[in-house]
């Protein structure tokens, strides 16, 4: 910040030029629209920063305090930091910090004379929106605050009430029949009283009366607002035990990961179709809710998060129809530990623009939104998510949102941080809270310890891993033919059990049921009775109940008859020579192979023995079903390619590199411009003219412009540019002694006027 009279800059461009690369990079990171496309030099950068659309974007990222400070600055006009600080009802330190940030954002710059100046477009861009105090700018020749107060004290109650009303409703009133030149003694109406004391100033020939900023300030006790602006709305909280919060959240996290795995695993072999409009059909979502035993909103969230995490994508199936299938990233995801898997999902969710909460609701035309419908996005939602979680992370551990009042207070706090965000914020915050609860980032309406780590940019995985159930390596098998795994099973075990038994209940534990069908499935997959018995004995911590042993043996009894006949097995192959080779293999002697047809062998040993022996011999036998068809043990599961969408971390790395290169480019461009011989009469490109004019607007400088009028006559005019809007320049024309509008595309040159030229009145 500028100190002393000789500090400060002539223009915003000069100030930017003086900044370090780091500081510039900060600006460009905070206002990424400035570098698309990369500006040539600082003049262009400063000009772009002053464009209304860009200012508007920058304002969107400000907090209520920052907006209020900016507003006060607009009211105060070009002035010193001390002056701004004095009219804001907030802690001075907070105001200083805020001013620093506003300068960093290029919304305020340090002009000559140690004064600060707000970009001229700010006032317009703020409008009457959030953070605006509704006061008009101070007049240039504002009397001292004490003077205004004295005049206010002289007012009649009616006049004061009228003034207060005018100030509160925008600072404008119609003049009506009030006389404009009148002495305080002669004032007959409250309006005249105010006009006579210069508390309302006539404009536009007296039709309009305005209350200048200093009057509003005086009415509000010297500040732009009557309420402090640096007070963050508090969250309504309730106490919750931290261990319970963490356990609840971890439970939800585990559950969510499990559901994603379950659903995608299922879709790998039973892929749902992609709708022509790009989404997932209502019926398929219903089927998913049944599979996961959850409600529809939850299933939609699972589907959407899986998709944004790159685990689900679409591809053509064998028949050419497009279907939703897990990607190959799913396979590596499944192999990771649960906490890591959770992190992948949660990161993707945080950064995603998708709106899963809208699935099932209707659009304006009454059409139901499908899950994965491409239209279900919002650019504002990632910020709402991070803002909401950040707000929750400010609570001390053990503090949760109070039931009922907690959510509205959270909405209010998030609104304080980003007051200019859209009206749908209440929904966004509520969705974030419910989705974060489903994902296990928060539990019991409080952020979990690992969720806090995630928000703080630390690694949540070790914290979460400690909270997740330890894998178990055994089950409890019971006489009602169920097996209970009292926790998540160690990898591989779950898959094997699922082959031998049907899953009946899932969750922290899994309940399996053995049926003749499930045992047969294991046999189909090549298990022998002995293998099943051995497997069950090895995983069961309790003795195997007799009915289960009986069930397995009984199933094997019937299974064998169908598969290979009573006493012998047959081997069939189209390749006759391979069969002959097998028969003559010395190691195969004990198998008692006999060729009964060119393509058929029979064996005198039971299949139980034959199959493992054949496998030892390097033959890969396939078991034939009853109808002679080959039984494919496990149908091929489909995989799509992981979408090339990059995560935000990658994006941000790229972003940082780009910002750095842009900064270098701007400096180079700037040096080139400086080195170029000054040839002010060279016609400017429209963008060059714009940059020069904006600079003049910000610097309140007087410039000489070359202008081609309607008749094609070229002339030179001395003007004071006031604003640039929609392709035209509003400027005070010295020759015409009036404010005129010029079409920017007709401006051929813009030249600064030497300082000794006559200044604007």
């Amino acid at each position, binding site marked *: 910040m500028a100190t002393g009279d000789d500090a400060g800059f002539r223009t915003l461009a000069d100030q930017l030029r003086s900044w370090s690369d780091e500081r510039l990079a900060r600006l460009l990171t905070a206002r990424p629209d400035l570098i698309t496309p990369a500006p040539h030099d600082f003049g262009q950068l400063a000009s772009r920063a002053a464009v209304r659309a860009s200012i508007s974007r920058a304002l969107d990222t400000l907090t209520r305090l920052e907006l209020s400070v900016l507003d006060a600055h607009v009211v105060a006009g070009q002035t010193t930091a001390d002056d701004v600080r004095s009219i804001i009802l907030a802690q001075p330190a907070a105001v200083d910090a805020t001013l620093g940030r506003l300068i960093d954002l290029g919304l305020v710059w340090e002009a000559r004379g140690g004064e600060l100046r707000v970009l001229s477009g700010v006032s317009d861009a703020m409008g009457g929106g959030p953070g605006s105090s509704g006061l008009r700018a101070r007049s240039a020749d504002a009397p001292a605050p004490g003077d205004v107060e004295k005049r206010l004290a002289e007012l009649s109650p009616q006049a004061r009430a009228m003034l207060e009303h005018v100030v509160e409703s925008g600072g404008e009133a119609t003049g009506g029949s009030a006389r404009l030149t009148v002495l305080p003694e002669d004032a007959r109406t409250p309006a005249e009283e105010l006009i006579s004391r210069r508390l309302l100033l006539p404009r536009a020939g007296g039709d309009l009366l305005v209350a200048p900023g200093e009057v509003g300030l005086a009415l509000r006790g010297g500040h732009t607002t009557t309420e402090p602006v640096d007070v963050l709305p508090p969250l309504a909280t309730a106490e919750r035990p931290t261990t*319970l919060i963490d*356990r*609840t*959240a*971890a*439970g*939800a996290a*585990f*559950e969510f990961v499990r559901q994603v795995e379950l659903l995608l695993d299922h879709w790998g072999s039973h892929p749902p179709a992609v709708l022509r409009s790009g989404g997932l059909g209502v019926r398929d979502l219903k089927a998913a809710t049944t599979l996961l*035993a*959850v*409600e529809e909103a*939850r299933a939609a969230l699972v589907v959407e998060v899986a998709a944004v995490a790159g685990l689900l994508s679409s591809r053509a199936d064998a028949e050419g129809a497009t279907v939703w299938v897990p990607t190959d990233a799913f396979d590596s995801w499944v192999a990771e530990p649960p906490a890591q898997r959770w992190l992948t999902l949660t990161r993707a969710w945080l950064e995603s623009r998708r709106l899963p909460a809208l699935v099932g609701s209707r659009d304006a035309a009454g059409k139901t939104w499908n899950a994965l419908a491409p239209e279900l996005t919002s650019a504002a939602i990632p910020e709402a998510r991070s803002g909401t979680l950040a707000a929750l992370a400010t609570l001390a551990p053990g503090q949760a949102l109070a039931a009922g009042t907690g959510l509205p207070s959270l909405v209010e706090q998030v609104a304080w941080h980003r007051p200019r965000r859209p009206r749908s914020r209440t929904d966004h915050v509520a969705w974030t809270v419910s989705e974060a*609860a*489903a994902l296990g980032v928060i*539990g*019991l309406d409080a952020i979990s310890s690992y969720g806090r780590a995630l928000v703080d940019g630390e690694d949540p995985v070790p914290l979460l891993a*400690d*909270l997740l*159930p*330890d894998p178990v390596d055994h089950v*409890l098998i*019971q*006489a*009602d*033919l*169920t097996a*209970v795994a*009292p*926790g998540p099973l160690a990898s591989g075990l779950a898959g094997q059990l699922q082959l031998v038994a049907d899953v009946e*209940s*899932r*969750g*922290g*534990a899994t*309940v399996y049921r053995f049926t003749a069908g499930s045992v047969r499935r294991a046999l189909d997959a090549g298990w022998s009775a002995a293998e099943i018995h051995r497997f069950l004995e090895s995983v069961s911590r*309790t003795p195997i*109940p*007799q*009915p289960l042993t*009986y069930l397995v043996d009984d199933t094997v009894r*019937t299974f064998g008859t169908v598969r290979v006949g009573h006493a012998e097995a047959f081997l069939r192959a189209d390749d006759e020579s391979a069969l002959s080779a097998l028969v003559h293999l010395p190691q195969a002697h004990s198998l008692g192979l006999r060729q009964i047809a060119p393509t058929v062998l029979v064996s005198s040993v039971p299949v139980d023995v034959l199959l493992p022996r054949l496998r030892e011999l390097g033959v890969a036998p396939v078991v034939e079903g009853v109808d002679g068809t080959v039984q494919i043990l496990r149908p091929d599961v489909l995989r799509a390619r992981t979408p090339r969408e990059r995560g935000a971390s990658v994006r941000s790395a790229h972003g940082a590199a780009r910002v750095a290169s842009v900064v270098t480019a701007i400096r180079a461009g700037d040096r080139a411009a400086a080195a170029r011989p000054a040839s002010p009469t060279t016609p400017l490109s429209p963008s060059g003219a714009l940059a020069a004019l904006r600079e003049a607007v910000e610097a309140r400088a007087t410039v000489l412009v070359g202008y081609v009028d309607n008749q094609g006559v070229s002339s030179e005019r001395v003007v004071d540019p006031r604003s640039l809007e929609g392709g035209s320049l509003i400027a005070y024309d010295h020759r015409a002694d009036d404010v005129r509008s010029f079409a920017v595309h007709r401006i051929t040159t813009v030249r600064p006027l030497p300082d000794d030229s006559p200044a604007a009145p």
Partner: protein
Amino acid sequence: MSSGPLIVQSDKTLLLEIDHEQAAECRKAIAPFAELERSPEHVHTYRLTPLGLWNARAAGHDAEQVVDTLLTYSRYAVPHSLLVDVAETMARYGRLRLEKHPVHGLVLVSSDRPVLEEVLRAKKVAGMLGTRIDDDTVAVHGSERGNLKQALLKLGWPAEDFAGYVDGEAHPIALDESEWSLRDYQRDAAESFWHGGSGVVVLPCGAGKTLVGAAAMAHAQATTLILVTNTVSARQWKDELLRRTSLTEDEIGEYSGSVKEIRPVTIATYQVMTTKRGGVYRHLELLDARDWGLIVYDEVHLLPAPIFRITADLQARRRIGLTATLVREDGREGDVFSLIGPKRYDAPWKDIESQGWIAPADCVEVRVTLPTSERLAYATSEPEERYRLASCTHEKVQVVRDLVARHADQPTLVIGQYLDQLDELAEQLDAPMITGETPVKERQRLFDAFRSGEIGLLVVSKVANFSIDLPSAEVAIQVSGSFGSRQEEAQRLGRLLRPKDDGKTAHFYTIVSRDTVDADFAQNRQRFLAEQGYAYRIIDADDLTAQD
């Protein structure tokens, strides 16, 4: 990570690891709100159902308690959605209350106006409600108290009944505990019923439900109507009441097909109550014959539909339901809840067995293989004939003979469904037989003889399924049943579970034909037993013979 005994699944089942040191404590804590679904040897499964949660609300537990219990004992994190669901479900109970209004009589009062509005607009309750008294109160036709409760339950807004009970005609009844004493769980059951006002007590067969009924009567001190399944059972109730209470012969009446007595304590059979003559239930007036202070429903899971209808009209009287299982093959558990009352007491069979109150049982399924000719006949028969063909195979006779011989010195029952088969067995075994056609007197004589040990072997049809006290039976051989009925299996096993003098194990054999629907049905039935913790073995008939 905590190491509690309970695992809460997201599908609302609770798995309780019973070898855990906290298991007993946890069982007590969750019993009020969770339904015990299966209790095999290692892990018991409970289920959270709306009915169960409302039962808990009726018993004075609130959602916070339930949630707290789950969180306290749960080994892993409890799914958040489940906790929310528990709270929401429990909050539905009691938003509507049935109350006595000094002016308007019975009224439905709501603490949540939108709920009342929703209910008022429901078609199901149309006609049951009278005029709107104020925003939150609406009059109820006195006669519709039961129907309204039923309808509200179906709408998912069960009403809490504060309308109270009539005391009925007072009649002194006391337990005569000179030679015996009420077991702890029986006392608990009667107490919790009495405090709840009305409700169902679930106790295993042989655990002395009759005495719970008697204890309830002693609480009520009023005239009592007891509804039982059949005449034999009625006589047993009478004997038991005479033996265990201060009631005398003259105070107890029987109201059945043969006798129609109305006394301060009247025992009526479901059958006579539901007998229609000329299209009307002739005997329903029995219900109004006296100002009953208590109504006891024995074997409430068998309550026939007409009795439900009349029960709906009896809401002002205290009602106690007794049963071994709330499982109803017709799925009308909700009607039991709304018309008789919530479950007031429940104890797992195995617990009571381990306390020694019911005998341990050894369950064995014997599989016979159909001879080729019968298999052919079976394969080509009509589907509806198959069960009969499979279960009546001649092969079973030999197995029954072997089993009877093996348990020659033990009182044995042979139970079956098909009379032809039973005839054949009775003839082959040279044993007396009781079927539905046997006169009551003859039945009584045979049962008495069996009880006294005069007869060691009895062939019975399904008439013996229920409420017949044959404490001496040690062996039961089941040759056929009614298509895999779970409660039939429980009842038949129940015959054996009266505690034996010397703590002997009872034997329960089921003979089924392999690879037929008989085996499929048997599996269904046995699943129920296994879920009750009765491990069973399966052996082949050939092995059985080989063992001997």
